[in-house]
């Protein structure tokens, strides 16, 4: 377990995955902020376009399906509108439309579990990275699954239309604050579930299942937009809690009164699994899936407690253990994840469900870690400060002086060098942070200049811009730039010799 706390950083892991030489960041999929921003911008742009195209096609198909159903209504009343799409599919040559029509084919023909299945036909090569394509695939799959699910639901088509329209409308609200976005989504959930109850007369269980699927569909599409948005200080809070947890590395299981005995193999196994699950939360997109990670983490904790104490875990046991797990795991983007779940999860799950209970405990654990002081660990504030500043460190369960004197000397030396290393690590951390700040300032500055140039260009259009209309002026501009490039080269040469007149 202890190696988790150690400092193992491979220099190459720190650098931006694009190889631009800047430092990358796990929160930005290993890219530096500049590359990430570019990637993300392109991704957003593409998503808007895709959504737009999808919306248009679905609209068209829906109308056609509706018309065809009316035509067939007399002769073949049993035919579902979906079959019509299957027919049309063979006629349509555009593969993009194929993808969309396949969304509506009965699942017996397109097994939704086969990843490659309905998406192979996508002929347009994705211009962005595989990560971008992956999230686009995720979104397509979410749509496919949502439609498959709704086929069996009364008014499924109606529900899909509403969700799609709402999700698209969110794309135009990107400048809204996070709380307003959350209000919008929560209002939508509320209205939809009210309608499912009152208008469609769904049972509570059915409504709950539909709402789960609605959340999955919508949040998969909106994830990149609304997770840790730039309008909030979520990212700042992430860094703060991450640093706080790192500073608390010296806190032991005894100080927190955690009732688990890691000497027992099954218990230490549960602890490792709990840590893995809580770290995994960050990799999920749908709030319900993130909650699932917290719940799995909690169940492992319960198991650890039950095996250690030989009784069922109560809240008195659970909370301190969860705090301990969070301290050990230092989960990535902890605050962003908590905020995202709070803002966009189905409220019923959060407020009364079992998942909600574990989530609330996680919120408690974070609040406790933020406010933690000497008193909450049963020590004097002086002692607490010594540990926090790294001037002292608890020696763990066995005091160093217990063995021979030479052994204890070696141990204390090891402690000293560890402290030095920690200090170095912290300094490096600060340097990197400053560098990042500088970097993002530079990016902002470039953006600003770019914007200014753009607006200048717009208000004073260049003649060469209009030249694209005629081939003649195009060659002229090419020639012009050729001359320019010659000039550039000339600058590298020594100045031409000037004829000099000598009197005499």
């Amino acid at each position, binding site marked *: 377990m202890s190696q988790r706390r150690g400092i193992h950083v491979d220099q190459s892991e720190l650098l931006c995955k694009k190889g631009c030489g800047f430092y990358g960041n796990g929160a930005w999929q290993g890219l530096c902020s500049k590359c990430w921003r570019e990637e993300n911008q392109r991704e957003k742009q593409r998503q808007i376009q895709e959504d737009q195209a999808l919306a248009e096609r679905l609209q068209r198909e829906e109308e056609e399906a509706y018309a065809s159903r009316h035509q067939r209504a007399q002769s073949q009343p049993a035919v579902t509108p979906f079959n019509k799409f299957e027919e049309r599919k063979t006629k349509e040559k555009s593969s993009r439309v194929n993808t969309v029509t396949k969304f509506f084919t009965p699942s017996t023909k397109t097994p939704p579990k086969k990843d490659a299945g309905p998406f192979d036909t996508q002929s347009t090569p994705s211009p962005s990275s595989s990560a971008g394509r992956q999230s686009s695939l995720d979104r397509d799959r979410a749509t496919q699954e949502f439609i498959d699910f709704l086929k069996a639901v009364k008014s499924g088509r109606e529900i899909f239309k509403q969700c799609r329209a709402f999700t698209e409308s969110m794309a135009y609200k990107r400048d809204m604050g996070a709380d307003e976005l959350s209000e919008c989504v929560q209002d939508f959930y509320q209205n939809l579930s*009210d309608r499912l*109850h*009152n208008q469609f007369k769904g049972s509570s269980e059915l409504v709950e299942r539909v709402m789960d699927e609605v959340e999955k569909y919508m949040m998969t599409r909106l994830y990149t937009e609304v997770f840790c948005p730039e309008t909030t200080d979520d990212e700042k809070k992430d860094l703060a809690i991450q640093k706080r947890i790192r500073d608390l590395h010296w806190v032991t299981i005894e100080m927190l009164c955690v009732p688990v005995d890691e000497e027992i193999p099954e218990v230490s196994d549960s602890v490792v699994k709990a840590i893995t699950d809580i770290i995994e939360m960050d990799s999920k997109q749908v709030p319900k899936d993130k909650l699932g990670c917290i719940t799995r983490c909690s169940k492992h904790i319960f198991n650890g407690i039950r095996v250690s104490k030989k009784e069922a875990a109560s*809240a008195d046991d659970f909370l301190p253990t969860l705090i301990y797990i969070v301290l050990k795991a230092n989960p990535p983007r902890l605050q962003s994840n908590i905020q995202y779940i709070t803002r966009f999860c189905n409220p019923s799950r959060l407020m009364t469900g079992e998942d909600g209970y*574990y989530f609330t405990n996680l*919120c*408690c654990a974070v609040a406790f870690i933020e*406010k933690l002081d000497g008193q909450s660990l049963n020590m004097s504030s002086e002692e607490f400060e010594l540990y926090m500043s790294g001037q002292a460190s608890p020696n763990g369960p066995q005091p160093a002086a217990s063995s021979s004197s030479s052994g204890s000397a070696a141990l204390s030396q090891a402690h000293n060098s560890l402290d030095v290393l920690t200090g170095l690590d912290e300094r490096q951390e600060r340097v990197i942070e400053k560098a990042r700040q500088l970097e993002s300032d530079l990016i902002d500055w470039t953006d600003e200049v770019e914007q200014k140039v753009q607006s200048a260009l717009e208000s004073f259009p260049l003649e060469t811009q209009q030249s694209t209309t005629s081939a003649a002026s195009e060659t002229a501009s090419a020639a012009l730039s050729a001359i320019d490039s010659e000039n550039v080269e000339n600058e590298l040469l020594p100045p031409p010799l000037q004829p000099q007149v000598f009197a005499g």
Partner: protein
Amino acid sequence: MATAGAAGSRTYSFKVVLLGEGCVGKTSLVLRYCENKFNDKHITTLQASFLTKKLNITGKRVNLAIWDTAGQERFHALGPIYYRDSNGAILVYDITDEDSFQKVKNWVKELRKMLGNEICLCIVGNKIDLDKDRNVSVEEAESYSESVGAKHYHTSAKLNKGIEELFLDLCKRMMETAQAEERAKGNGASQSASSRRGVQIVDDEPQATPAGGCCSSG
């Protein structure tokens, strides 16, 4: 959060928090109620911190979620995170422990301040099987409860006394509150954002003047 439909066919979902000092018997009460167990060393339950119970009260379905809270003093400040959005709170003290009753009084003040009158409060004197060691008088506890708009119950998790009544009564009260809320907001209208989130901050304590004698030590 209570979700009750206009048609009356919907299931009520209630969240109830258990509050009180450590060792007063919170966990014992809920384990007795949900699994009819007391000090059972043969563990078949994985955990006793979140338990649910399905009830049918006068033809209406109720899903009760009971949230145990960490009772240690160092976690006291986390209370508001736990009881946010709850429909009911069960405040437990040990009748042999005067101090645990004082803690209940603190919780009442805090809950009323944070959640107003929307939350149904139950004050529970547990361990009545130990009546010979009683340190909190019945009269004091009951009159205090009345003065703060809470209902008082006497229970023993050990002997399984008074527990069914406690939870059944609480559910009925929460249903009344939910129905009143529904009527107030009108049929079919969707809840406002603030009531959906369920948190209401009240500046002044809407507290009745305590009846004589109940505040002798506080």
